[in-house]
């Protein structure tokens, strides 16, 4: 293809996106669009399956049968999200095994929030309420993103996430209304998860390298700082409602901007965790690698068995 032809295709492509048309797997797309989408969708898929670990940590110790069943179902939903996000990613010409390889080698990233430990039951409530809450704010705009398979996957993901968020809030509410010990447990969890949740909305606009391009392709509709503001404005009244205190002395309603002012985020901590120095980076990655390596003989057996069955069918057909 000549340079002029490519340029022409690119123009048609950008026009289609501007008209809100969906790009489908077989459509022509610029290489950079494909690569950016593989990066983002796979990061998202990895986050779902790594995210199973901190919550899975409490399934066997959940305090009631009802909570145990709900938590199991939630973690299972995340496995399901992982599954269809990997499938969406595969439509861009990369295999699930390659994506796992990138995760296991540390080349691909996942959401840093899952590198924090779940040390009490209240952390399960805090994750649902805050982490899923922040995730929804990040993800709702993706339901109308330009890449068709991703947008469709996100519609389903978002429905389930908002259910998880309500469930998490309900855990926190129950604790906050409970004994002093339970309330303290809830407050402690909020103290530990609040700032990392704010970091989930990404670096400040000034630091964010992908924002401009992502806005153009509708991978983003709002900037990180706008999303963060939305998250804070939505969450502060919820904390007040259940009598918990947001751990930020500088938090104050700003009448003029119609939103809260808030304290400084410790971006050093954020970058340290991104670089692999969070409290559980090593544990999360080794749990994934371990499951994969220990499961190899099982996957091999399934492949070998399927092949034998196919050969048998072929022989019978002859």
């Amino acid at each position, binding site marked *: 293809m000549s340079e002029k032809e490519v340029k022409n295709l690119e123009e048609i492509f950008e026009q289609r996106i501007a008209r809100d048309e969906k790009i489908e797997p077989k459509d022509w797309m610029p290489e950079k669009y494909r690569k950016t989408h593989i990066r983002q969708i796979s990061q998202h898929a990895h986050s779902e399956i790594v995210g199973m670990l901190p919550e899975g940590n409490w399934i066997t110790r959940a*305090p009631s*049968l009802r909570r145990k069943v709900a938590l199991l179902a939630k973690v299972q939903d995340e*496995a399901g999200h992982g599954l269809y996000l990997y499938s969406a990613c595969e439509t861009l010409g990369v295999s699930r095994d390659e994506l796992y390889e990138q995760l296991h080698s540390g080349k691909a990233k996942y959401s840093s929030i899952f590198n924090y430990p779940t040390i009490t039951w209240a952390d399960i409530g805090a994750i649902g309420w805050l982490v899923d809450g922040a995730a929804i704010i990040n993800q709702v705009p993706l339901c109308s993103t330009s890449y068709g398979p991703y947008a469709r996957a996100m519609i389903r993901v978002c429905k389930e996430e908002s259910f998880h968020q309500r469930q998490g809030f309900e855990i926190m509410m129950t604790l906050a209304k409970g*004994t002093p010990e339970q309330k303290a447990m809830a407050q402690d969890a909020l103290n530990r998860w609040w700032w990392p949740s704010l970091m989930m909305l990404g670096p400040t606009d000034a630091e964010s390298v992908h924002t401009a391009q992502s806005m153009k392709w509708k991978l983003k509709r709002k900037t990180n700082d706008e999303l963060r503001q939305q998250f804070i404005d939505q969450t502060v009244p919820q904390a007040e409602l259940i009598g918990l205190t947001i751990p930020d002395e500088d938090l104050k309603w700003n009448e003029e901007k119609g939103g809260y002012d808030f304290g400084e985020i410790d971006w050093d901590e954020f970058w340290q965790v991104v670089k692999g120095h969070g409290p559980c980076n090593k544990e999360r990655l080794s749990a994934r690698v371990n*499951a994969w390596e220990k*499961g190899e*003989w099982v996957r091999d057996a*399934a492949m070998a*068995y399927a092949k034998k069955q196919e050969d048998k069918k072929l022989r019978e057909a002859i």
Partner: protein
Amino acid sequence: MKKENLKQYIYGIADNVLILGQRLSELCGHGPSLETDIACTNIALDLLGQTRSYYQYVAQLFDEDKTEDDIAFLRTERQYKNVLLVEQPNTHFGYVIVRQFFFDVFHLQLLQQLQNSTDETLSAIAKKAIKEVSYHKRFSSDWIKRLGDGTEESHQKVQEAVNDLWRFTDELFHMTEDDIATLESGVGIDVRVLKDKYYQQVKEILQEATLDIPETSWFQKGGKQGIHSEHMGYLLSDLQYMQRTYPDMKW
């Protein structure tokens, strides 16, 4: 049949599904593939759902002030009446599948009988559970075949699990005093009559999977009397941790 017989009889059925559900939920997020993770979690969810129905029934029948959670979390080890098979650890995926398979074949037969119980609630729980357990049995049987007739390594591993867990199968067909008392009143079922068909079904699948049938004649027992293996205490310390550490709270 005394009331206590009925309570112990229901524990005998319900504790099996609680403990196996607990074992399966340890695996969530650590399985060999996303698909098997989802399937094992599904089975755990079914089993814990059944557990809740049984315990809610016991709570309603006997102790107005007791809840399903008191029954699940606040008994002592000797008061759990599950068979030894279901408490065995997740040594590797082969063990998970064989334990599941050995239990599923029995479980489905048990429920098919229990649906005819004169106790309407037990009959209703059984009817609902049959659909779920038919799927469990298909899942575990399929995996027995895949692992048995897959690679040399998988064959060896699943054979090891079959050999190890075989000794726990006979206990499934033991009758306790409570089993006998409830059988006489038409509520309970006679598990002894299921035995021949059970081994026939199990052997068929193992043979199809090219696996050897163990020739042991010595079997383990005790779970039904609440005399468990050493694994049980650790399983319960996880299961009961919150309720024991923070007594009398709502969650």
